[in-house]
Structure formats: structure tokens, C-alpha cells
């Protein structure tokens, strides 16, 4: 009975959204993480090795595709350089401050996943970078395919990612927009429905031009998450309960199983 009261008390304390971790918690997390990374990586290499043998035939096709992409990339690079130069000269003309110039100067930190939580309702991941490497809470985490999640807890040399799969109505959502319609489109990615495996995007205005198949990006409007990270594609749009706004179902872009390497997006210091 006493233990039950204690249990409720501990849960009550932890639910009150205490940010940051205490020293013993950090120590425990870091030492465990230290051991876990010896296991996760080799296991990943082994799994990858067997997969590669299976995929040998598909490799040739992929190579071809990559060559096409590189060609497209070099073409775009020339365009991009020219655009960057004009952009810079325009910024000079308009007397941008240093902070304004650096607003989109993101840094990407390369991190290894070292463990996956064995809890179906709390599928967090642990990575091998912590506050020592400049990781802070609420930084966005991406893979080459799209956004994966948000840094939720940080200790000295490890930190925890809350994947987008764990978004629920209790946490603040991510403001998002559609690719190519950044000026007119707006919504909030608020929760993930495990039964349909779709993200829910709510608070979309009734006259929003968003349609099925659009790519959804982070909008960067709330100044918490960076701008332009791919979240997913629109699968369907419905009117919400009162008919004033619309709700969209979004299929996630990133693949969440067998994650090995992720990138943490670090925003420039000046505006934080």
C-alpha cells in the first residue's frame, strides 16, 4: 500500500513536465549508453552485411539512379551559387543585421543511434551525442529521408530522441506548411495515430490550397524547429468536427526501423 502511494507520487512528480535531468539520472544514462553502444553498432553492421548480400542485384539499379541524381545536383549547384550571390548582395542592400543573415545557417551534427527503447508506448531512441557536443532540448533530428523526431532529454554524452511516432495531444505540435505553398498554407502537426499509422495535421484553414500528395515541411514559424525539414506527404484531407478548419492525414517520409545514423539540426546561436 505504501509502495502504491509512492508510485503515484513519483508519477505525479514526473508528469509535471520537469525539464532537465538530475545528476544521478545523467550518470546512469551515460554509463548505460556507454555499454549499449558496443552492442548496437556491431549488430547493425551484421544486419547490414546480410542485407547487402541480398540486395546485390538492386545495387546496380540504385547506382544508376544515384548517378542521375548527382548530375541533377551539379546542375542545381550552379543555379544555387548564382542565387546565393544575388541573395547576399540583396541582403547587403537591405542592411540585414548579422542575426538576420545567419537565421538559416543550420549546422548538422552527425550522431549514432546506440539503443532503442523496448516499450511500445514510449519508443524513444538514444544517440551518442550530449550536452558536451552542443546538443540541446527541442532540436530537430532528421535522416536523409526526412524528419525523425525531437531531442527530448539531454545528458552529458548521450541524449534521447522522441520520435514523431510519439507525438500526442499533450505536447505542443510542430507548425508545418506545404512545399511550394509556403506563403498560403499552414497547419499544426499534432499527433500520431498508431492504428492508421498516419500523422494528424490540424488547424488548417478552410480555404487552404493544400491538396492530396503535397509534401509537408516544417514552417519554422514558431522559431523552435528549423525551417524546411520534410515531414511527409498528404494522404487525405477531411473537414474537422465543426467545419471551420480542416484536418489532414500525413504519411511519414522517414523510415523509423533499423535507424543507424541520424543528423541533429543545430540552429545558429545568435537567435536562440
Amino acid at each position, binding site marked *: 500500500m505504501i509502495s502504491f502511494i509512492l508510485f503515484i507520487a*513519483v508519477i505525479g512528480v514526473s508528469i509535471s513536465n520537469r525539464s532537465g535531468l538530475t545528476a544521478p539520472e545523467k550518470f546512469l544514462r551515460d554509463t548505460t549508453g556507454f555499454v549499449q553502444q558496443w552492442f548496437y553498432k556491431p549488430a547493425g553492421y551484421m544486419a547490414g552485411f546480410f542485407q547487402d548480400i541480398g540486395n546485390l542485384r538492386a545495387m546496380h539499379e540504385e547506382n544508376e539512379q544515384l548517378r542521375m541524381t548527382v548530375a541533377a545536383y551539379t546542375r542545381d549547384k550552379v543555379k544555387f551559387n548564382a542565387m546565393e550571390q544575388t541573395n547576399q548582395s540583396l541582403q547587403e542592400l537591405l542592411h540585414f543585421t548579422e542575426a538576420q543573415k545567419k537565421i538559416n545557417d543550420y549546422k548538422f551534427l552527425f550522431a549514432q543511434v546506440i539503443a532503442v527503447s523496448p516499450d511500445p508506448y514510449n519508443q524513444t531512441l538514444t544517440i551518442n551525442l550530449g550536452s558536451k557536443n552542443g546538443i540541446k532540448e527541442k532540436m530537430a533530428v532528421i535522416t536523409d529521408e526526412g524528419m525523425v523526431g525531437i531531442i527530448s532529454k539531454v545528458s552529458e554524452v548521450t541524449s534521447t530522441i522522441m520520435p514523431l511516432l510519439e507525438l500526442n495531444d499533450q505536447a505542443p505540435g510542430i507548425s508545418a506548411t506545404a512545399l511550394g505553398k509556403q506563403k498560403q498554407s499552414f497547419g499544426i502537426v499534432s499527433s500520431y495515430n498508431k492504428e492508421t499509422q498516419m500523422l494528424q495535421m490540424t488547424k488548417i484553414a478552410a480555404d487552404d490550397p493544400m491538396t492530396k500528395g503535397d509534401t509537408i515541411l516544417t514552417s519554422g514559424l514558431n522559431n523552435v524547429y528549423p525551417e524546411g525539414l520534410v515531414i511527409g506527404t498528404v494522404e487525405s484531407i477531411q473537414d474537422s468536427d465543426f467545419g471551420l478548419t480542416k484536418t489532414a492525414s500525413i504519411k511519414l517520409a522517414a523510415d523509423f526501423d533499423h535507424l543507424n545514423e541520424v543528423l541533429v539540426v543545430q540552429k545558429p546561436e545568435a537567435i536562440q
Partner: protein
Amino acid sequence: MRMQGIVGLTFLAFVVQSTIVPWIIPGEFAGRIVPHFTLAVVLFAAMYHSRHSALLLGAGFGLLQDVVFRGHLLGLHAYAMALIGYLFGLLLERRRSTMMMALVVVAFGTLLYELALYFVYKVFQFTQESLSWALVDHILPSLFLQLAFALAVYIPLRRWFQNLAMNRYSKKEPE
């Protein structure tokens, strides 16, 4: 010394379930088959060692799980694992459990644990899914993995724990 061995073993189970197992599970079942190897070790400790060691192991490694994968709540795993370990220890500590019995206990323990997790998360509204969906989606598939693990480690773990328990009793008798 002997208790350290058990703790080391449980820690190994903890590390394996969070690092190696996610790689073995095929992509279609990722997030659906969830390993609870530490719980299996705790239940074996309850059956073949003592209910107190099960209580301590459950609380300790549940707390480790809570802290390392800090998500919505703190202390849930610790409480659930300790309670389940102690209860099964209370029921079965002195009996000579057969292999079938052990498997049934592991299955029931895991089911109880998953249900406890589900209901607590449901009460605090961290999950909106229905019970029947949760059962089909991950609770039952995970049960098969858990049974396979229990079967694989049954003989070595039982022998080990019984030796430990035997040593303990033979030491106490002369006094």
C-alpha cells in the same frame, strides 16, 4: 558475489533487448514485437531463487529502463516489474516448477506487465488506442518472442538459480 552475477546477467538482458533485438526483428514487425527479456529473468528469479531478489531486480532494472529511455512517466516500469516479480514469487517460490509451468508463468507475467503498462498510459492519456487493437498489434506478437526467449534460457537459468538458492539454504542450516 552471487547476487552480482544475477545483476550482471540481468543487465546483459537489458542491453541485448535494447540494442541487438531491434536489428533481428524484420522491418514489418518493428514496433510490434517488443522484447521484455529483463522481465523474463525477473520471473525466473521469482520462481527459482526468491521473491525478494525478484522484487529488487524488478525495481532496479525497471528504474533503469525508466531513466535511460525517459519518456512520459518515471517509475512505471520499476513498479510494474517489482510488483509482478514479487507476486509470482509469493505464489511459486517454494514449489518445484516444471518447464511448462515456467513458460506459463512467463507468459502470464508478460501479459500482466503489458496490460499494466497499457492501462497506466491510457489513464494518463498518453495513448488513445483501444485495448483490442493493442492486444493484436503488439502484446500478442511480443508474447511469442518472450516465450521463445524463456524456452531458450530455461535450462541454464533454472540450474543457475537453483544452485544459488541451494547454496543459500545449506549455509543457513548449520546455524
